[in-house]
């Protein structure tokens, strides 16, 4: 039996295993030794950039150079897969050849699992400086509070790879399995489509390119969601994703493509309406997608000076002296030049909620 203990960060921004290892290398070595079966082989994976740590661990374990492998940190997700980790122990690149957990003679233990307390999951919440300990199965409200998000602001909890779970924050008592080093709480200010795009972009980088559903599937999802966020979504897009995501979740060669499919399916299930509004109503409810931002001239601040008209290269601003100026939204290209030209601070950018403005220039009432 070959035991592989993995300290490679699955998310580079959430190096939980490495964090726990560095906290006490000697204690970690003790746990690692205990995890190896009698007569079994041991390999430990640490990032290639952590040479000093690798040496320290070798000393503590009393093992030779080849037992602690300094692996390439270019990819992260693949280190959750035993077939990929076995490749690394053979001096090859970390490329999965199958779904993990099926190798009879190999046991892959994530460092975080080995070093964490029983029943506790150490997770790194997006934006935090350090990981926090939470129960493995945790109430949504507790995750939100650990993330410093008020329950009224929270929209959902997203658990990263390999779980890919998305749980609505509507019910604070709802349970969420923390099956990842990385957790993100979506707030009212987060647009579901653009968060999904971020996630899919990560999957694009983490993919190995070996299978059609993992590689081309993720490419199509990322491209479609990207189009949606750029106001280029098409009516059939959600149906396309509903078609593709479940097939990816079963037909990708390894967990990376499968989790991408699962995550996408969860986002559509929970936030289908919000995403679809980008296409049908041309709005981004959270006001996060830049393509849906518009510029407006506030009628009570405009002095009719015409500076903005001179600044607009698209001739998209209508008005004349002593008239309240109005931006023609059809002609506006959202360059923002008018904002800096206006000394009165009368021009603002608006997301989901638009200010009231006259349809065409009207004379300024004497103030």
């Amino acid at each position, binding site marked *: 039996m070959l035991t592989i203990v993995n300290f490679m960060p699955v998310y580079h921004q959430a190096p939980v295993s490495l964090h726990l290892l560095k906290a006490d290398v000697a204690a970690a070595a003790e746990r690692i030794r205990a995890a190896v079966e009698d007569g079994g082989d041991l390999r430990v994976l640490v990032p290639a950039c952590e040479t000093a740590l690798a040496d320290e661990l070798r000393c503590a374990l009393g093992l030779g150079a080849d037992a602690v492998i300094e692996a390439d940190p270019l990819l992260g997700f693949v280190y959750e897969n035993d077939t990929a980790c076995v490749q690394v122990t053979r001096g090859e690149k970390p490329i999965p050849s199958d779904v993990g957990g099926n190798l009879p003679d190999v046991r892959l233990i994530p460092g975080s699992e080995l070093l964490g307390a029983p029943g506790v999951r150490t997770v790194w919440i997006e934006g935090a400086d350090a990981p926090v300990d939470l129960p493995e199965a945790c109430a949504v409200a507790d995750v939100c509070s650990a993330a410093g998000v008020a329950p009224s602001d929270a929209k959902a909890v997203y658990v990263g790879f390999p779980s890919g779970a998305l749980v609505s924050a509507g019910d604070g008592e709802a349970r969420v399995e923390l099956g990842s080093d990385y957790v993100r709480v979506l707030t009212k200010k987060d647009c579901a489509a653009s968060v999904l795009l971020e996630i899919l972009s990560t999957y694009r980088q983490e993919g190995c390119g*070996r299978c059609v559903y993992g590689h081309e599937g993720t490419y199509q999802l990322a491209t479609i969601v990207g189009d949606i966020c750029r106001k280029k979504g098409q009516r059939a897009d959600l149906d396309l994703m509903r078609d593709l995501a479940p097939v990816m979740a079963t037909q990708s060669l390894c967990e990376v493509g499968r989790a991408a499919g699962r995550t996408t399916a969860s986002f559509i299930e929970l936030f289908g309406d919000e995403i679809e509004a980008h296409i049908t109503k041309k709005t981004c409810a959270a006001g996060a997608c830049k393509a849906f931002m518009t510029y407006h001239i506030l009628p009570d601040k405009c002095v009719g000076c015409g500076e903005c008209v001179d600044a607009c290269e698209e001739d998209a601003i209508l008005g004349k002296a002593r008239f309240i100026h109005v931006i023609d939204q059809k002609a506006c290209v959202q360059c923002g030049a008018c904002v800096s030209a206006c000394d009165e601070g009368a021009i603002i950018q608006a997301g989901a909620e638009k200010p009231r403005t006259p349809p065409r220039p009207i004379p300024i009432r004497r103030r």
Partner: protein
Amino acid sequence: MNLTINGQQVEAAEGASVLDAALDAGIFIPHLCKHPDLEAVGGCRLCMVCVDGASEPVCACKTAAREGMVVDSEAPAADRVRRMAMELILATHPTDCTGCVKYGKCELQSMYQYMGVSPMRWRVKSRPVATDDSNPLITHMFTRCIRCGRCVRACRDVRGVGVLDYQHTENGIRIGTDGHVTLEQAGCRFCEACIEVCPTGSIIDVLGSLRDDRSREDNIVPCRSGCPAHIDIPEYLRHVKDGAWDDAVAVVRERVPFPESLGCICTHSCESECKRNGLTAPLSICRLKRAAAVRDTGSWKARVRHEALTGKRVAVVGAGPAGLTAALYLAEKGHMVTVYEANEKVGGQMRYGIPAYRLPDEVVDREMATISEISQGCDESPRIELRCGERIGDPVALLAAHGGAFDAVLVSVGTHAGTRLPMSGADLAGVYLNTDFLKAARQGSPLDASGHVVVLGGGNVAYDCARTAVRLGAASVDVCCLEAEDKMTSTPEERAEGAEEGVVLHDAYAFNSINESEPGSGRVGSVTVQKISRFYFDEDHRAVTELVEGGEVTLPADHVIFAVGQKPEDTAGMGLELTHGPYVSTDAALRTSVEGVWAAGDCVTGTKSVIAAIEQGRIAASSIDEFLGGDGDISEVLTDHPEHSPLLGKVPEGYYDGRVEPASAEGVVRAKTFAPFEAPYTCDEARCEASRCLQCDLRLDLHAPRLWNEY
């Protein structure tokens, strides 16, 4: 093991995959990333099947066949996954197939046409990757790549080379070398397996390297097709690499009976075809043949064809390479052969044309002795009778039908008459013909070559004359020819070696006149030549020269040698239909206008090469054997031909270096002697040189996947 696929009972071998079981039974299931020679990975998801009524489809290439299994490749669930996978592949593949070299041969094209799939509902946009044509032999057009990974697996798993892999780049994942270095820097062995297994036009032979007039096999192994006798060159080079000299010679002897002579003097058109011309330098194929031949112990002799005597008799007129080759194969087929030779010894141009410093008498004698020995075999008396010093003026009279004693006659008299150009002074004393000059030198009674010698002509024979003159003690030797140096028919090596021995070349000169030493002396004194700017043949095949005004040069000359071609002697009186003057006219099987008479070699083809003459001898022997009631099969298997190991392994030290050069006497030393100046390769040199072979033929061992229309 029995299973049911699409309602059909199918037998499968233990350990076979469902896909293999189906394909072997003639049931087509679409697939792309699976190749007959490569491990399955299950990446393309085209070979989807539902097993035993399960709703979730699995890929057939990774599913082992089991007894009693019920497989459905047409189940809606399997079809859905397969079609969507193909849509996704096509969505990023260039849409226009017509500009692709693989058009009509592309597996992807074949597969999507079979499935009738269009990617139009997805985001359709190809991912452009700059074409990389910086590598020799292999061009990468990865815009067309579908990342099936067949090239990666072929390079790693089949060849053990491992230079190709998936690479993360700023613009996504693509195939390439680690560190994005050139193929040579990565350690590529240029075996071209990657080209062979690529289902699309992503990895291709360098554009323009494949000739339309050649078969696929000939294009892939061009040395073999470039050899007139089609010697299996990669096969014997592998034996040389392993130091298996007898096996190497056996492979050569399966096609030609003069390995050592050819190893010394072959014009080696194979080397100009060698794919390593694009990679440092071609293999030294000719010298490797010699290296093996000089170490041959003859263990192949036991396998020589030796059919029972037929009672038929064949006369061969002319004991050059064509005649002797035919004599050997006819004798092996059981016919009694009498070889008539006008000269005192056998060999033809090998003995009387080619100078001794290239091919000494001993080699010709040795190979003749071997021919006599193997053709006699265990018979009591020889099957080949040599009758030297007998010139046959009327070969037809040898036929039984015309009062002679033979059932068939082969005319292989070669081209032993030199050509004298009809120019002023051509008949002066001291003007020689190439054939006379070279033959006299070989017979030990050389013509006078003292003083200044001028050779007119630019082929290898001109250089044979010039270098023979050097050895006979000429004070100076000038070679003049019409062609500019880059158009000369002599090999560059020949010119370089000649120059080292003091031969001065005057290329691109027209021959104006040969002048008397003193008016009325009747003896040559000088040659006047004139520089030309251009030389070509017009529509009527007449030579046209454009003279350079004031470009006249007069070279002092005590002797002038015409080396401007040679032609057959005696053919005019043979009663055979002739062509282009004195050449014997034949059909493709080398039959002449008289039934029972064949002709082969230079007297048919014009002066060519020993290897071309040998091939003519083979064709004639086969044809004559059929005429005499045989099956015409003269092929031989003189050694075992085990399956090739597909594994090449990591690139060895020195793989990209140039040729290994054998020991060779310096110009000033060899200019004084007719002894051969180049030593055969040592064992180590030969093995090192042979290991440079790309083994292009291994590519032919890879199995081409059958397209759906072949099921």
